[in-house]
């Protein structure tokens, strides 16, 4: 087998194992969550018998191993289970709650990534090319200050300037069914801007640092002595050898866009998966929390796996074995 394929298969298997481990941890962690869903739904005045009956109905009295197998088996079949909340009236499938929200989150993440990643790469490459010039210093100072500010502050500043002082965009990003793409884009403009400001800094600085690290190599001096132009030195000679750390930080930023944007969602009242999870934790709606956590973990593992595979696949030593 080609060593590259073998390495990729190894990584995939490791990713699978990691995902399984996470599912066990998620499940057991929620076991230790203080409080009880049945008590909190039925109120303090409910008789122990009623609570017990309710627990039986939810399956909470089965042994943990059995409940884990039931849950994970369902997940593997695409069934995330039923939400505890609302059971008193009509049972709601977890997927009905989570998936639309996930779609919203992915939409926001995709738009942000499509803008932030190219901008960050370009700024990083330019900062490396014109390092220690005024351009480099300004870009560095600007990105450092956006990353140093808490997200909610960035979000409010963005609202203050672009929705209040110069009312170009909406301060609230509520999505409603039947909006077409243009309307949706207008709605998410400010959260996209906020998130971009937050993630560009990391990616840009890593790009700059990785490229500058490679620029000290003898093959870069050689390229210059061959008369290669500065931009080509950066793009063709430095970038391919600096790809691994850059890809890793991009993967990390993309994962953050799915997993870590709850503050931004709250500020802009955006119906994303982060809010859903926070609500579910507050209501002790364990199936929803489990589903969200598993999705978050899978996102992290998948993106990091992808970054790993890309950095392995761009290493000529692995790609072209002796």
């Amino acid at each position, binding site marked *: 087998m080609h060593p590259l394929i073998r390495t990729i298969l190894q990584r995939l298997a490791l990713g699978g194992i990691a995902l399984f481990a996470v599912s066990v941890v998620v499940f057991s962690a929620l076991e230790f969550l203080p409080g009880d869903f049945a008590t909190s739904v039925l109120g303090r005045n409910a008789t122990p018998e009623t609570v017990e009956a309710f627990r039986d109905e939810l399956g909470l009295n089965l042994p943990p191993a059995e409940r884990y197998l039931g849950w994970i088996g369902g997940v593997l079949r695409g069934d995330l289970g039923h939400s505890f909340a609302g059971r008193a009236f009509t049972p709601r499938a977890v997927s009905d709650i989570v998936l639309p929200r996930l779609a919203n989150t992915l939409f926001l993440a995709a738009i942000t990534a499509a803008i932030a990643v190219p901008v960050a790469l370009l700024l990083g490459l330019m900062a490396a090319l014109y390092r220690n010039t005024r351009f480099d210093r300004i870009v560095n100072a600007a990105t450092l200050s956006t990353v140093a500010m808490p997200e909610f502050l960035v979000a409010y500043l963005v609202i203050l300037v672009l929705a209040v002082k110069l009312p170009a965009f909406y301060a609230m990003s509520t999505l409603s069914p039947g909006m077409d793409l243009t309307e949706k884009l207008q709605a998410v403009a400010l959260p996209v801007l906020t998130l971009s400001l937050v993630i560009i800094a990391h990616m840009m600085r890593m790009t700059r640092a990785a490229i500058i690290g490679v620029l000290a*190599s*003898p*093959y870069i*001096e*050689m*390229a*210059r*002595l*061959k*008369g*290669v*132009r500065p931009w*080509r030195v950066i793009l*063709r*000679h430095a970038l*391919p*050898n600096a790809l691994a750390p850059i890809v890793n930080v991009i993967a990390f930023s993309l994962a953050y866009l799915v997993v870590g944007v709850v503050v931004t969602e709250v500020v802009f009242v955006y119906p994303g998966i982060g809010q859903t999870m926070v609500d579910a934790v507050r209501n002790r709606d364990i199936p929803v929390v489990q589903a969200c956590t598993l999705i978050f973990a899978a996102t992290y593992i998948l993106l990091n796996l992808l970054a790993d595979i890309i950095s392995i696949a*761009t290493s*000529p*030593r692995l790609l*072209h074995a*002796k």
Partner: protein
Amino acid sequence: MASDTGHLLEIRGLRIEGESDGQWSTLLHGVDLTLRRGEVLGLVGESGAGKSTLGLAALGHIRPGCRITGGSVRFDGIDLLALPESDRLKLRGSRISYVAQSAAASFNPAHALLPQTVETAVQHRLMPLQTARQVAVAQYRRLQLPKPDTIGTRYPHQVSGGQLQRVMTAMAMHCGPDLIVFDEPTTALDVTTQVEVLAAIREAVEARGTAAIYITHDLAVVAQMAHRIMVMRHGSLVEEAPTSAILAAPQEEYTRSLWAVRELVKPDQPSAAAPLMTIEGLDFSYGRNGAKALEGITLTIPRGRTLAVVGESGSGKSTLGRVIAGLNVPTAGRITLDGQSLPPALRLRSRDLRRRIQLVHQSADTALNPRQTVAELIARPLELFHRLRGRATAARVNELLDMIELGPRYADRLPSELSGGQKQRVNIARGLAAGPELMICDEVTSALDQLVQEGILRMLLDLQAQLGISYFFITHDISTVRAIADEVVVMNRGRIVESGPRAEVLSPPHHPYTELLLGSTPEMRPDWLTDVLAARKAGQQAES
């Protein structure tokens, strides 16, 4: 555009300064250099003499952290220093090109060789891509590379060092430049590979009538290549003369000292009766099913004498040293120290056994902890093996510093405040501090300048006479063998091909591999390379 004087390159009064730790120091003190068309100029000197700085200046390039404070560089009448960078780029690679010391580091690992070879021609629109490829393949063929039609599709890590160096020469010659700067192109290569690369470079340069600046620290090498030689030291010119004149009658004492090591010969001494160490039928392989890195090694290390182990890189010299040190565990065979059987693995050896065998690494730069002072570095084995404390340690450290000819004033310095030779002395002192009976010296002088090498070899000989230590001395350099060895072992591909007293091994009849090694060591006469090539050709014809 022909210049008035007919000179291809004229450097006048060039001053370059370099910055380190905020201090500017002068690298070149107003150097003049003149090169005619088609002439090969040798630039010789120790490291830090400013050879590379001068060589790069011929391309109008200065390294980051350096600045030009005076003088001019005119190439074919063009003032390179006054030219805007974008115009200099057009000259580089096409009319003036560069061959770097380490081809392995100077090729971009992310791209195959052919696109790198043709890059200048294609980017500067000097040739269409198809033509450029054909020219490159023709160059590969001229430089006697194996499979010239397909070698360009390979990546740098897939090709040997000697081949890479020739590909780099092909790359430098690709656009038919007027001037090539060769910066120590064979320094990183084995002697046997060096001969091939030197021959290929010389032939290619002669065939096109290309002018060249050939930079090296090895006078014997440059004597084969250059019409004229400039000797440099501390950024200034020491001596300049035609090659034959400088070899026959060097005017300056410094020039003579450049071959100091070659004149050092250890007097013959009879070996003591009982050997210090014997090795019998030793095998070693990396990994459980790996190929054998060492096979059937049998040798004895005489007491109070030096056993030199010679061979090319990859011959298993260092691996054997690590086996003796206990770092590699052999798969078969037996080692005795002083008549007692020696446990193979380091963890099975008692502290006293570990003390008796010490390993000194090739590169003092990486072997010394940069955050420890000289005193801390040397004190560590004293505390570990001799349980010395406080004042006793300090006194012993000072004694050792005297023994390595540095003196107590170096005790509080950090490795970064020492020169390469001083670092290597500290590295040796650390080994001595343990009080060993056997010291494994792994290429300890290879990275050093000739004069510094001579100093360290003399010191090692003195220490041996005083302390009666045995050296297991790993080297690839025949002159070092002459200087230090009593017994010699020649290794090739993990086996011993010849062994015996130095005088026997170094005088005929030789094993064919020893013959090859000895024959590939450059000699101080301009016709050496021509003679070697002629002899090999004759040998090949006789065979076929």
